[in-house]
């Protein structure tokens, strides 16, 4: 009897099981991905807005200052180093392009606009992501898996207000300042390679830098850096904060994967949002 019932069950199951077509599988796959992406974007938006609101408290000020030091001051050296060599390479490349047209005089214009409008905000944001964003994800992720975030909730301390809000505020403050450093040091780097090494006139170079830079260029660069700052911090903190919700791994491994995801997603989002912001401000 037992055997019969097993056969019946099996036959029954096979009889009612719908066959999956190729088209259904494709729709299921992409549909599932789209729904998950939609959910993640929604969750991230709520995460950001809740943290943003909690930023405006007097008690948050010492934590914001601490984060400005960590995200801003501690990242300044590496941002300036990268800015300097980026400027040097740009100076070198543009010199040889411009010399072919006999227009080395506009080297200052080319360098200033490239750095201030585009390369400064993007490269500074990527460097800050690598230095501060990754450690933010790892730190918050470890706090999550070691129940430190749960402990905050039990102490009636809002974890978003305690951990995320100061970081978002610090990013909004630090990103434009670091971008300005990057631009400035990049212009100096290009002067070193273009003027000191390749012999372009220094006076002409700096005159072109100042005269060709409009306030809109600077504002545009700052708007971008603020957008990048908000995106990078939100993505990095979100990945760390919800590291325990990952389905592909647990514990330390989930923190490591969250950190990787945070850096990759942040870099991609910097480039995508760069295009979107450009299309609005140009």
């Amino acid at each position, binding site marked *: 009897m037992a055997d019969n019932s097993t056969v019946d069950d099996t036959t029954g199951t096979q009889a009612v099981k719908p066959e999956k077509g190729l088209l259904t599988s494709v729709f299921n796959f992409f549909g599932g991905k789209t729904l998950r992406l939609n959910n993640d974007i929604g969750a991230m938006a709520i995460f950001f807005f809740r943290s943003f609101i909690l930023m405006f408290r007097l*008690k948050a000020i010492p934590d914001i200052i601490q984060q400005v030091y960590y995200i801003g001051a501690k990242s300044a050296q590496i941002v300036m180093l990268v800015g300097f060599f980026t400027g040097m390479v740009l100076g070198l490349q543009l010199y040889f392009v411009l010399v072919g047209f006999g227009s080395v005089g506009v080297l200052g214009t080319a360098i200033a606009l490239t750095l201030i409008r585009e390369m400064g905000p993007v490269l500074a944001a990527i460097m800050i992501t690598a230095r501060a964003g990754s450690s933010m994800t790892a*730190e918050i992720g470890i*706090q999550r898996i*070691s*129940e*430190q975030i*749960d*402990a905050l*909730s*039990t*102490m*009636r*301390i809002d974890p978003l207000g*305690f951990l995320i809000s100061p970081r978002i505020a610090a990013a909004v403050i630090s990103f434009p300042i670091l971008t300005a450093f990057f631009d400035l040091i990049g212009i100096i780097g290009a002067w070193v390679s273009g003027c000191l090494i390749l012999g372009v006139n220094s006076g002409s170079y700096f005159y072109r830098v100042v005269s060709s830079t409009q306030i809109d260029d600077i504002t545009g660069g700052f708007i971008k850096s603020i957008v990048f700052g908000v995106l990078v911090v939100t993505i990095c903190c979100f990945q760390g904060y919800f590291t325990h919700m990952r389905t592909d791994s647990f514990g330390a491994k989930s923190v490591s994967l969250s950190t990787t995801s945070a850096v990759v997603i942040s870099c991609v989002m910097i480039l995508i949002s760069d295009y979107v912001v450009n299309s609005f401000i140009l």
Partner: protein
Amino acid sequence: MDTQREPIIEFKGVSKTFGDRNILDRIDFSIYEGEVTTLIGLSGTGKSVTLKHIIGMLEPDEGQILFRGKPIDQMKKAEWNNYIGQISYMFQNNALFDSLTVFENVALPLKYTTKLKKKEIEQKAMARIEQTELTEVADKYSSEISGGMQKRVALARALVTDPNIVLFDEPTTGQDPIRKNAILGMVADYQKRFGFTALLISHEIPDVYFISNRILALYGRKIVFQGNPEDFESLDHPFRQELISSLENLGHELTGLYSRRQFKVRYQSDLSQRRTDASYAAAVFTIDDLDNVSEKLGHDVAQQIIRSLGSYINKHFGAVGGFSSRQTINEYATVLPYSDLEESERIMEDFTKDFNKHGIQGVKTYIEGEDKPEDGVEFSVLAGLAQGKPQIEIESVMEFARFNQKELARFTCARGGEAQ
């Protein structure tokens, strides 16, 4: 008695399932104000899950949790904040912020949830740090201190807001026997001092009986027992057998003595074979002023005294056929099944001489006549003897022995140092 009292927290038909795994199946239990309630259960049976429901970290799939008769899921925001503000939770792994110092960890809840001034926060946090004997490490990061100290930091942080209810999730995990009992002693001590309601998850059988007013037993997704520790010891349920077989050895860790259950089993097996007119002697030893030692010199010193006396009783009376057990936090009972009162008095005299000569092992002690340090703390050991008959309940004989107690030794002990 319980039906006449209003529980402070009550679980009514609470169920919880994760995925396809049912953890809690319509559990009902009550926690009463000002008591220490201990939740006992085998590993992975949902004890922490139960605790997390109280603090709102988990929500039941079914059933209700009531706080003073009001369902917590129906509370308004202000009521919820008021409720949650009365509870502290001490995590199993402490959940300390490793990027903050000990002081910052303890001061954290005050800094972010109260309107106290900086100086008041400092004073309050430092008071708790001193009470938990952490003054020397206040400026160290939590990752730089030992596991036992981390537990105390977590305890100090849990108590700094003066909560009404403290939930302890396995506070003794990973500690040595002395430290385990020191932590349990600390919980009992603070509970008495501050009067909070404590709900404790612990595996420390039988040590936890000494500090608990009520025991809850979680087994097979249900609460199979709720009542006082004495009733739990006589519970006839498969859980009790399973628990005893898995945890009984832990009962020997601190003192090397029988658990109370083993003591009773041995008593019954030894005395049931004796003639009804045969007599035996029972002794009860009490450490007086132990609370004072805990308060002034720390819980470690107090536990060392308990351990040392227990080992000494075991060694001395075991050699003459006796068997002993720790009865309460500061009391031991010994049965000399083959000695009458006269003989047992002689044995006790020998014990007294030896004990006074050797003193407490591992603690610097001074006896009468020696130069005592100014910061020394006095305590005494009392002992009383009584004669019993096999047909008389051991509890009655022990009551007589308590009545006959006299001071056996008086010591002054000080912090640090080895045996005298």
